[in-house]
């Protein structure tokens, strides 16, 4: 379904749209207050952009350096070309270790690879341990935001969901009670887990270590209790040096939620005694995206979600309207690279207002890339006959001034003369919610000509 159709469904409940918009605007506002406290914030963004651009230009070198150092640390490293390979590798590790119960902290990569259904089909229990992710998992939904996965649900909905799945008492959406119950439920899962899967926020080439950021400490709870830790990362998560964390950790938390630092920025380097640590490095279309000069900067993304919070469309259409693992502006430039036809409406789910590019902590030119995807979609995917024809017709009219004058005269005569009821009726989509401007007797063109003629007459 197209983005506009799904957005239309979300907009059937205007109160919910208002609440969703305000909740995310609040986060954007917190971000503003927080970044204005940082002297040299724009310089920090330049650095983040520069480090990412450099790293992506030397991706092979840094990935191999990372692998060598991770191996030295006693970590096992795996390479996956695509989502299927990733899932097979993870399943292989779990099988080898007779792991039947898995806890998983937030990882958009495993969402992208559809790891959960794959493991569940192989009789493995996977529990998402980030509270928001657990909520959407119980609801059998996708995350609607990469940092706030259940932002589309209100507390009453969570109350009902927990009653059904966790046996909680009705509490009128009392957040204190609900989080307390979720905590008890998740602790049980942590204690009995055979393996823990985490994502990776930053992998450091020079020492083979990696950093996982969570606000709930759930990555740590999982990784510190289970005998096996599997960390899954996309190739673009690599940074050259430990010192670069000083740039990215500051950018990430402030951009994501307005916090000066994420509550838990956990550094992992080597497995604890008698436990195993695996890293799965996944491509899954990233090399292809890297090969597209206009779109490679999309791989700078550190998954802060700021572009979603700031996007006036995302806030009013909801994350599910994008029907993609990564929603919002950044998702709209990543997804077409994976399936141009399926995601062909996403680059058009934008007014090209540019707020996403200005808010992005690593300066991805998101709205420029949206514009560029539009051109590719216009050429390479089947376009509605009417759109194609009208674009060609407009192109012709605007290249020929004489033709343009005639068409314009008819248009504003129609606006002036025809009844409003006719103008605003189907197929005029504009007129569903908006009036059209009142037509004037004269276009500017005609007025100017008349004025010039009068001037000449005066001179005579």
């Amino acid at each position: 379904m197209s983005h506009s159709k799904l957005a239309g469904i979300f907009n059937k409940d205007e109160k919910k749209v208002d609440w969703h918009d305000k909740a995310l605007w609040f986060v954007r506002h917190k971000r503003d207050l927080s970044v204005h406290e940082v002297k040299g914030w724009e310089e920090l963004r330049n650095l983040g952009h520069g480090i990412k651009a450099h790293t992506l230009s030397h991706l092979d070198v840094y990935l191999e350096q990372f692998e060598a150092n991770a191996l030295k640390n006693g970590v096992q490293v795996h390479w996956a070309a695509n989502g299927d390979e990733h899932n097979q590798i993870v399943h292989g590790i779990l099988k080898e270790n007779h792991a039947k119960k898995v806890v998983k902290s937030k990882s958009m990569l495993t969402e992208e690879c559809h790891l959960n259904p794959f493991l569940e089909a192989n009789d493995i229990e996977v529990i998402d341990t980030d509270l928001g992710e657990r909520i959407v998992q119980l609801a059998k939904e996708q995350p609607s935001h990469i940092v706030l996965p259940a932002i589309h649900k209100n507390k009453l909905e969570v109350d009902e969901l927990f009653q059904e799945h966790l046996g909680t008492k009705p509490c009128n959406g009392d957040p204190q009670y609900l989080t307390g119950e979720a905590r008890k439920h998740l602790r049980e899962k942590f204690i009995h887990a055979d393996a823990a899967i985490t994502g990776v926020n930053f992998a450091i080439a020079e020492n083979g270590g990696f950093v996982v950021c969570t606000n709930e400490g759930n990555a740590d709870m999982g990784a510190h209790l289970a005998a096996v830790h599997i960390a899954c990362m996309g190739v673009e998560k690599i940074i050259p040096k430990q010192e670069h964390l000083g740039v990215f950790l500051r950018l990430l938390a402030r951009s994501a939620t307005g916090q000066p630092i994420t509550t838990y920025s956990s550094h992992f380097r080597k497995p604890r005694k008698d436990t195993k640590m695996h890293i799965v490095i996944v491509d899954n279309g990233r090399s292809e995206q890297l090969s597209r000069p206009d779109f490679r900067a999309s791989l700078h993304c550190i998954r802060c979600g700021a572009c979603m919070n700031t996007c006036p469309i995302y806030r009013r259409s909801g994350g599910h309207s994008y029907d993609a693992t990564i929603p919002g502006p950044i998702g709209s430039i990543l997804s077409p690279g994976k399936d141009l036809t399926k995601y062909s409406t996403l680059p058009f789910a934008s007014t090209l207002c540019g707020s996403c590019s200005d808010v992005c902590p690593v300066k991805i030119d998101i709205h420029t890339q949206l514009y560029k995807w539009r051109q590719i979609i216009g050429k390479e995917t089947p376009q509605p006959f009417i759109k194609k024809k009208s674009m060609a017709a407009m192109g012709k009219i605007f290249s020929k001034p004489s033709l343009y004058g005639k068409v314009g005269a008819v248009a504003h005569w129609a606006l002036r003369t025809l009844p409003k009821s006719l103008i605003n009726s189907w197929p005029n989509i504009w007129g569903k919610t908006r009036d059209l401007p009142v037509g004037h007797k004269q276009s500017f063109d005609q007025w100017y000509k008349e004025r010039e003629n009068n001037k000449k007459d005066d001179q005579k």
Partner: protein
Amino acid sequence: MKVGLFIPCYINQLYPQVGKATLELLEKLKVEVVYPSGQTCCGQPMANSGFENESEGACINFVNNFKDFDYIVTPSGSCAYHVKKHYNIIQQTDEVVKVRKNVYELCDFIVNVLKVKQLGASFPYKVGVHKSCHGLRGLRLGSSSELVTAPYSYIEALLKEVKGIELMTLDRSDECCGFGGTFAVTEDVVSAKMGKDKIQDHLRNGVEVITATDVSCLMHLEGLITRNKQPLQVRHIAEILNSTIESKVAHPKGQKH
């Protein structure tokens, strides 16, 4: 200094009064203005819809009309931005490069080329400024709320000098209005909702007249305002800067758009 006036297609046809105000204002400022008669459109409607190739004829026509001027001035941040940013699809001859460099949005031209702020205008109303996105984040006519930079706004710098005007502060200083060209039609539900919310922000803050550098945003907002019979007016910034209304009447300028 010879200035070519570019009047965007929809202003020419639907809002001629904005074109008149722009021309009169520039003439008041003693600028030698010519309106080349062969002009049509900057090409943005096709390009933003993913049909950049269909806009080439419009781009070439634009350059042919304006290549001989020192500056090209237009009452639209969006069109000026399009020429600057997206005219890389045609061959970059000296003429094309010159046109792209010398095209200016009206306020930008007044503040940064003419270097005047006091225009002798008066407009005794409570005005809310809608910072049209392409002017704001494309041409950088002011600081955007996302960036950590010293605050400035060419538009407000000019409006502050207008006699009798009261500039109102909005809750969300520079959120998009939801027009977005064909977005207004292809994503009509979200587009209308964005506009509705924008209007509420102005109403909440006591605004009587919304102004902007782009008529396209105002046309979208006015369409909603008229449909919902809300107590607000829209005026392009050229109309305010060219206004000499001394005392308040029911409708500014005495007539509705």
